[in-house]
């Protein structure tokens, strides 16, 4: 347990008062056991908290709903948890514009409710019952519907961010088109809180589709299975296209899960006539039929809601046409697979032998690396027990971005207090 010194504890309490409730609650995140949590009550208190932490050089793990606690590298020098749990408010849903703004700690479920009530759809569906808006954006987290919704980077219109020295900043705006200065939103989306703490965001909403239909089909182990699945994902109304292997098939859709090969799940959404046409095509080409209720939720849960790290969960991103090649490299890894063929994403879970199965973990990494190379993409270890992260970067092979990220970290978080050690290259 990392215990905050009495001096630092008193210093924080004096500087922040009641605005950022200090609580003693033991929490384990990112390999760090922390006993103090700061929970600022508003954006101003968040900024003041970060300023004080920076001034005292106290590293903080930024936490939203705690959905992705097992992700990232092992934290170093973190001494407190900085929680956004009290920053929960839907600030505006503009039904005329199809845009909404909420504080970062707002649970996506609350935001979705407000957006639904205004007649629009919230285009985020990552796994995790407690997932917050801020956590979703910081992790660039996606769910099965990313095929139709788009990615978080393309859905954020504006953002309020507190930088690592406590400076409150705003970027973007509420309008749907904007080139007024740099696009700092994209820098923050997917940076896992390393360049600042997102405190609020303006989002683009999607129209609610007139009609939704989910179909399922068994897809054999034939050589063209991936190509056929990619074709299904490219149907005009496809909002979800997922392939589930035999490890998961019976969990997702017991009646249609094949004994060998893949279970194909497609959600079509949009204009009624267009959905009907795509459904007919899926029926003709794949023998697909209507899936049972809740199937998309079950697919999403495979991505790892509140994943308890008993094994390893990798995310591979490859070119769709090279899925075949990538999968061949995974053949020996004994992984359970969920694939989104339209975007070339593979979620691979690997169970490990026993306690601290280092050889198993190493073998898994080698397979993932080969698969990423074969697919011209990348492999990231999304969730793992801390021992499996030792002496390894969960983000995979360094890229040119990593070098520039170091210079950015020095400027956006000069004291190095935000999620220290957890991001790429141990930033």
């Amino acid at each position, binding site marked *: 347990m990392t215990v905050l010194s009495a001096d630092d504890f008193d210093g924080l309490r004096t500087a922040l008062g009641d605005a950022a409730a200090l609580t003693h609650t033991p929490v384990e995140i990112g390999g760090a056991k922390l006993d103090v949590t700061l929970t600022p009550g508003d954006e101003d208190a968040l900024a003041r908290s970060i300023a004080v932490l920076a001034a005292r050089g106290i590293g903080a793990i930024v936490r939203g709903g705690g959905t992705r606690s097992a992700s990232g590298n092992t934290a170093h020098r973190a001494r407190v948890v900085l929680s956004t749990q009290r920053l929960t408010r839907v600030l505006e849903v503009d039904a005329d514009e199809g845009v909404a703004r909420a504080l970062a700690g707002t649970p996506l479920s609350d935001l979705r409710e407000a957006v639904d009530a205004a007649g629009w759809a919230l285009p985020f569906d990552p796994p995790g019952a407690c997932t917050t808006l801020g956590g979703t954006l910081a992790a660039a987290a996606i769910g099965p519907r990313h095929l139709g919704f788009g990615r978080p980077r393309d859905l954020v219109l504006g953002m309020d961010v507190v930088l690592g020295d406590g400076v409150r900043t705003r970027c973007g705006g509420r*309008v749907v*088109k904007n080139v007024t200065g*740099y696009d700092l939103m994209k820098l923050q989306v997917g940076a896992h809180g390393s360049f600042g703490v997102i405190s609020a965001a303006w989002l683009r909403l999607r129209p609610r589709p007139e009609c939704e239909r989910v179909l399922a089909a068994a897809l054999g182990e034939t050589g063209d299975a991936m190509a056929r699945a990619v074709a299904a994902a490219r149907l005009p109304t496809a909002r979800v296209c997922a392939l589930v292997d035999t490890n998961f098939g019976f969990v997702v859709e017991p009646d249609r899960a094949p004994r060998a090969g893949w279970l194909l799940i497609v959600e079509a959404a949009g204009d009624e006539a267009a959905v009907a046409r795509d459904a007919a095509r899926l029926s003709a080409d794949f023998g697909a039929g209507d899936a049972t209720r809740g199937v998309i939720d079950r697919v999403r849960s495979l991505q790892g809601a509140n994943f308890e790290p008993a094994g390893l969960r990798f995310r591979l991103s490859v070119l769709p046409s090279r899925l075949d090649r990538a999968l061949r490299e995974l053949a020996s890894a004994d992984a359970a697979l969920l694939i989104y063929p339209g975007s070339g994403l593979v979620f691979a879970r690997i169970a490990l032998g026993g306690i601290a199965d280092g050889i198993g973990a190493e073998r898994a990494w080698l397979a993932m690396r080969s698969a990423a190379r074969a697919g011209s993409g990348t492999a990231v270890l999304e969730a793992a027990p801390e021992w499996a992260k030792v002496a390894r970067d969960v983000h995979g092979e360094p890229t040119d971005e990593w070098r520039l990220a170091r210079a950015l970290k020095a400027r956006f978080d000069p004291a190095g207090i935000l999620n220290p050690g957890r991001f790429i290259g141990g930033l």
Partner: protein
Amino acid sequence: MRSLDRAGLVLALREIVGDAYCLARPDQLLPYECDGLTLHGAMPSAVVLPRDTDEIARVVRTCRRFGVPFVPRGAGTGLSGGAIAMDGGVVIECSRLDRVLHVDVADRFAVVQPGVVNASLSQLVKPHGLFYAPDPSSQLACTIGGNVGENSGGPHTLKYGTTTNHVLAVQLVLPDGDVVRLGSPTGMTNGPDLLGAVVGSEGTLGIVSEISVRLSPIPECVETLLAVFGDVVSACRAVGRIIRSGLVPAAMEIVDQRTIAAVEASVYAAGLPRDAGAVLLVELDGVAEAVARQVARIRDAALLEGAWRVDIARDAAERERFWRARKGAFGAMGRLAPDLYVHDAVVPRARLPEVLERICAIADAHGLRLSNVFHAGDGNLHPNISFDRRNARELEHVIAAGHEILALCVAAGGVISGEHGIGVEKREYMRLVYSDDDLEAMCRLRGAFDPDGVCNPGKIFPTTRFCIEADPKARGYDRVPL
């Protein structure tokens, strides 16, 4: 820069790109003095036309050695003075890097050099049933490298998004001459999204020397409607109604009465009723069955807001005629006055009617000829002021009105640029939108890429902490004969 240094610089640059591709005579430099916004001008020390990434990197390192800033330039069609070389910098013109390096039909992306002309890529991949979605008005001339710099939009961004939504990866020559790759053709990297920060950074973070762009499938069906209204406010209300209904057309454009008059009097005449107050052009694309129903819904929305009539293009020729009213607008306005100031601002779409009325009132109060032709679906306004820069008094009014228009748009919840960028044109207006802390955060990004501020200096960021001066000279309008 001392003349001795300049001679040395030119010599060094010629060694890299060859004599023919390093321009240094005043008559050669003159075309590079400004871009599509002719009010601002600055004479470069030299212009180089490198042929590959390596030459760009060597040019950059040479500029560093001589302590000279540099600016990348595509076709020079930009409308915010972003491609002019301040402080006697060197212009790095990318027109020789004009090859499409690779087209991946299976994974729907292409790798291009920055000098590839926007429209030519769509033409090239058309046989594969694909196209490149961003379509700025200048797409027959502008380059994809320039589009990346400005995060260019166009009429069809309403449905397809702007350049940033279609760029998957870039090769970037950093301001220290190093070459990096950002992003991935897969659309996902294992690091921060620096690509997203580079697109739209107006050439201030480095020089893009190779670009991977997403290609989109050509929709199976396209329908184009032209709704004629008695006034522009009703046309705006129809747009609001369509957005609220959840329809996402490919494009929604409005041409106002003053523009119609100019178009109909020009070679671009599209047969529009000259007494119309505005026309709304709506394009729908997608699955045939769906589009047919959407056409009916759009027509109903237009009629409910008082459209005189709604025409639906019967064939490609008629579609082209409809679009002529939109695309010919800028050319037609050239007839009205020697100069045209094309403004660019965005407001929430529901605010369009009131904002437009007030913009017209501002122009009237200044005695200016203003017309509107704009991307209504995005709320992206283009108030165009026709004027004569030789008339100093009129120019003062043009500048004052421009400031009032931008302030009005920001007060309505909008921003000061939707697709043209800030460049030199709007740098002093950045404070209308952002606080000092917000701007300082942008400086931190800039500093990580270009700590010495040598890559396209003098753009985006305000030069003064004081209020905007009324004097055009003080605001950088160097070419104004006052």
